[in-house]
Each structure stands twice: as C-alpha cells, then as structure tokens.
C-alpha cells in the first residue's frame, strides 16, 4: 500500500506495517523534548499521581532555553530544579543554556530523517527541516515521559509543491507566509504539510527549519521537507548517518495539493493580530518601528546572521531603533563571533545577547503600549511581547535588518548596497 511520509513514520512508531490517515494509533516517539518552562511542573504532577520513573529516560531531552540567563529569582530556582530533576530521572540529554531546543536537536545530530519527535513546546515542527516530524503535545508530554507512548491520529497530508527560483531577498519566511496565504486554519487543521518540488533546491538546509517551524502557526499538525540531497549533505556535515531516507511513496494519497511559484514571491510580513495576517512588505512601508529582533527557533541561524550582516555593511541601525540579535544556539553564537559578525552587529548599533527563546514569548525585552517591533520570531498575538497595545510584525532576517536600518518596515531591496567597510 502506498503511504505518505508521515504514515510510514507512524506505522514504524506503532510497530505496524501500515497505517492510514484518520486511524488512531498508539506510538512510541523516537525522542521527547521538554523545556524548563514546564519540566518541574510536569514532574510535580507525575509524582502527585504516583509516577516516579520515566519509561525510557534515554529518549528524553530536557532543555533550559526559555529563561537564559535567569533574570528572576523564580527563574533561577526553576533552572536549578530542572537540572536536579533531569539528573534524578536520568534523562538522556540536558541542554543547559546552550540554545533553543529545536535547532539544537539538529545541530547535535539527535534527529534523522524519518524520526518522530514529541514535544511539549509548540514549535517542534522546526525539525521538519531535517526530514523528521515534530508534533507538539503540551502537558500530555508529561504522561508520555512516564508511559513511553501516546495516541495520535494519523494525519492527512497536504503537498505544497514549490516551483521556480526566488528573487534575491526572498527566503524561507516569505515562502512560509505565502503558504499561509494559500492555506487557512480550516484547511491545515489536523493535517501535515509536506513540501516538494524543484523549488526546494533553492531552500538551503537551515532555512528549511524556518519554513517548517512556521507552519505550526497556520494550525497544521506539523510540516516536513522530505530528505533530499541537500538534507543528506548537511546532516553528513554534522556527522549524522542517513540510512533509507523516508519519503512518501509514489501513489501516496494527498488530501490537497498546493503549488507556489517562488519566482513570483516578494518579501512578506505578518501583521497583527496573528501570523496568518500576511501582507506584502511593499504595502507596509509607512509603518515606523522602534524595535527590531533577529532570533528565535524560526531564525537566528548562522545563515540568517550572515545575511543580516551583509545587508548591514556600510549602514547603521537607525537612531531611535533598538535592534536585538540573539543567535539560536551557542555554537552559532561562537561561529558568528569568530567570523566577526557579532562585532559588526555591535558596531552598527545592535545589541547581541546569548542564545535563548526570551523575546519570542515576551520573556525578555518587553514592549510598551504604542511601540512596534519587527521580529523574526514565531507569533505576534496582542500581548505576546508585553503590552497588548504594542504591535508585532513578523518578517525574514533580511526584512527585519532592512527595517532596522530604515526605521520603518521595508525589504532588503530598499536598502542601498553598503560601502565596503
């Protein structure tokens, strides 16, 4: 029977030969990830009902990534307790202030194409960039750690075929937002998005994390770029062996087909009140901003930092704009430092901080009423970053950097090429 990629993954994790979309099956994920936000609370709840052990602690990844470094007494206590409980429960991996969980999983070689990761955090779909499927389960992840299994409904798959070649200045964020224009929540709900087509050749490996991670915000169950030559080369580069790439069979059933011509895209932004409110950057040029943020699990990669750095060359962050740059992992931070990128960001007037989820959920650098920020992070609900009367716009690293230079929303194409410094 022809199966989709996700049917194959869930069949394997259910110990079955085949499964079909719509079935409810019990599965054992390849990895379970929980951030410090929730880990001590989960353990407390588990102990309250008498669970004292994890079923398979080797497969559990605990990450201290949301409040790093601790900037409250409660946060310091939570981080300490997380470390202590991670040791008590012998979890396989503790990421302690080393970066954001989802890109770290890939950077550390912990996910391979065809893996299934169950996560407490919403944006686990980022790992779809490596051909794996990440699904968020919130508090249910606690019980999953105790029992080792969880029920899932096998989702239908929507195939999003990318054709053509993007214009300079158009990248993964813009493709994700273009996908949001094609698929609303009603179409995406309970379904998995699978990207395909020759256009993927123009979406580099690390950009695929951005592409997949943002699809959660359409309301999809998850998203994946099936492993191809780009995936294999990138994963080999970080020492991951890829055996028997998991891809959809010819003849597998897709519930919907969408085609996006990358050549027709221009830079896009999400405007308040939600990521799915998508506009062209060119329509938004009158919107002044006081804050710009480059970071989060949906950006903050070395490639995004390099692109922003190149655009900033010969320019400064405009007076009156606070630009914050947060590399997504410690390794990315270190590489960016070695390449001089962080030095140049600082010289141009940006503030660089250590890897954390921080500003994405309002844990750091909050906004006041009436302020506007353009951000590479995941969501822009009112109140997400402080005051409910602040406005958050979401765009690519290039759009955010261009806007920081200009002081209003604009694209990389609006910024004059800088003089060599």
């Amino acid at each position, binding site marked *: 029977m022809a199966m989709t990629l996700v049917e194959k993954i869930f069949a394997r994790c259910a110990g079955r030969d085949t499964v079909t979309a719509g079935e409810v099956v019990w599965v054992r994920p390849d990895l379970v990830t929980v951030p410090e936000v929730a880990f001590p609370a989960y353990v407390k709840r588990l102990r309250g009902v008498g669970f004292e052990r994890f079923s398979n602690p080797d497969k559990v990844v605990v990450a201290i990534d949301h409040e790093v470094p601790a900037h409250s007494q409660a946060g310091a206590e939570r981080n300490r307790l997380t470390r202590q409980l991670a040791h008590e429960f012998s979890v396989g991996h503790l990421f302690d202030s080393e970066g954001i969980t989802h890109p770290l999983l890939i950077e550390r070689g912990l996910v391979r194409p065809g893996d299934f990761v169950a996560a407490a955090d*919403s944006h686990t779909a980022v790992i779809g960039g490596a051909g794996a499927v990440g699904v968020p389960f919130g508090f249910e992840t606690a*019980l999953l750690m105790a*029992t080792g299994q969880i029920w899932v409904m096998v989702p239908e798959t929507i195939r999003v075929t990318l054709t053509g070649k993007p214009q300079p200045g158009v990248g993964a964020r813009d493709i994700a937002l273009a996908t949001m224009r094609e698929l609303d*929540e*009603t179409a995406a709900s309970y379904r998995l998005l699978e990207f395909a087509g020759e256009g993927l050749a123009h979406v580099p490996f690390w950009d695929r994390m951005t592409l997949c991670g943002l699809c959660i*915000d359409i309301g999809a169950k998850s998203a994946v770029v099936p492993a191809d030559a780009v995936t294999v080369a990138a994963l080999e580069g970080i020492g991951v062996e890829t055996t028997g790439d998991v891809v959809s069979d010819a003849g597998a059933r897709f519930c919907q087909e969408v085609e996006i011509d990358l050549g027709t895209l221009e830079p896009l932004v999400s405007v308040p009140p*939600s990521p799915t409110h998508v506009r062209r950057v060119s329509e938004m040029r009158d919107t002044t901003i006081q804050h710009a943020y480059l970071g989060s699990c949906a950006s903050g990669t070395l490639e995004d930092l390099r692109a922003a750095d190149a655009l900033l060359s010969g320019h400064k962050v405009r007076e009156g704009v606070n630009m914050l740059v947060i590399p997504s992992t410690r390794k990315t931070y270190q590489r960016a430092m070695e390449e001089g990128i962080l030095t140049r960001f600082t010289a141009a007037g940006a503030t660089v901080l250590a890897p954390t989820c921080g500003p994405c959920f*309002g844990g750091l650098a909050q906004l006041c009423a009436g302020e506007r920020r353009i951000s590479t992070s995941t969501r822009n609900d009112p*109140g*997400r970053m402080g005051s409910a009367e602040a406005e958050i716009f979401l765009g690519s690293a290039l759009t955010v950097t261009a806007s920081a230079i200009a002081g209003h929303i604009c694209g990389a194409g609006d910024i004059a090429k800088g003089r060599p410094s």
Partner: protein
Amino acid sequence: MRPYTGTCWKLPDAVSSDQLIGPAHVFDFEAETLRKHLLEEIDPRIAAEAKPGDILLAGRNFAQGSNHSHPFIAMKAMGLGLLCRSISRGPYRLTIFMGVPILTITGEIYDALEHRDRIEVDFTTGEVTALETGTTFQAEALPPHLLDIVKAGGGFEHAKAQEQDQKPL
C-alpha cells in the same frame, strides 16, 4: 458524568491561546493562580464570576496559536465545560487531557445561544438545552475512548486507573 448546568459565556471566533491566558503566565502551572487570569483580556468577569457547571461557548478556531496547557488547567479548576465551533488538534487534546468536557457544535447551536443564557449540556450524549426556551440541540458526543479520559478527570487519572485495573488482584 452528570450534565453541566450553568451560565453560558459566549466568546467570538479565533480567541487565541495568548488571549485565554497571557504569555506572562507561561511559567506558572498552579491552577489557583491561572484561574484568576483566564480570559482576563477579553472579559475579566469570567474569572471573577463563573461557577462550576458554567459553559464557555466559543466560535471557530478556539485557542489558536501556542499550544499552551494553562487555559485548560484553569478551566478544569473552575469546573467549566466547553462548546466550540472548531478547535485545532493541540488545544482539543489538551482540553480532554486536562479533564475538561468538550463538544464541537454547529453554527446553528452557536447562534441560538446568547451570552449569559442558562444552559444544560450533557457531554456524554451531546445534548445541549437552552433552559430559557427549553429548546434542545444535538451535538456529536466525544468518541468513547476520549470521553473515558474526561470522565476519569483527565489523562493522569485515567492512566493511573488503567494501571491499577491491570494489576492482579
């Protein structure tokens, strides 16, 4: 599980997870704290006045956005039930996992019920009665395996009960 009888608190479409409980409370999992903040941005009277047996009547795409457990911990502590026109998989699962009874309803039922109406909802049969008029509507009840989790009081209690059932006497 007995029917829920109480006041209906009507909400619009697309109430987001962040509007249900603001992200400022993301680190807090204490039910007694969270219940004070449920929907405070939209209508602070809900947290102050809602009583056990009351029903949140939501429109389409309820709890969209971040997959946060907090609103459902609060709803469970407050003894609320949920009727909504649609809900995506993340919050749907969390509703059931936290032991909050839920029915997805049609636009006809949503439109027929007004804010502050007295209603009765039998979550085991899917029957919704507007007590002001006596009109009864039929919604689709939860599938049995999910209803069992809600009846047990939530996922943890359900798992524990199953574990005990399997123990030899």
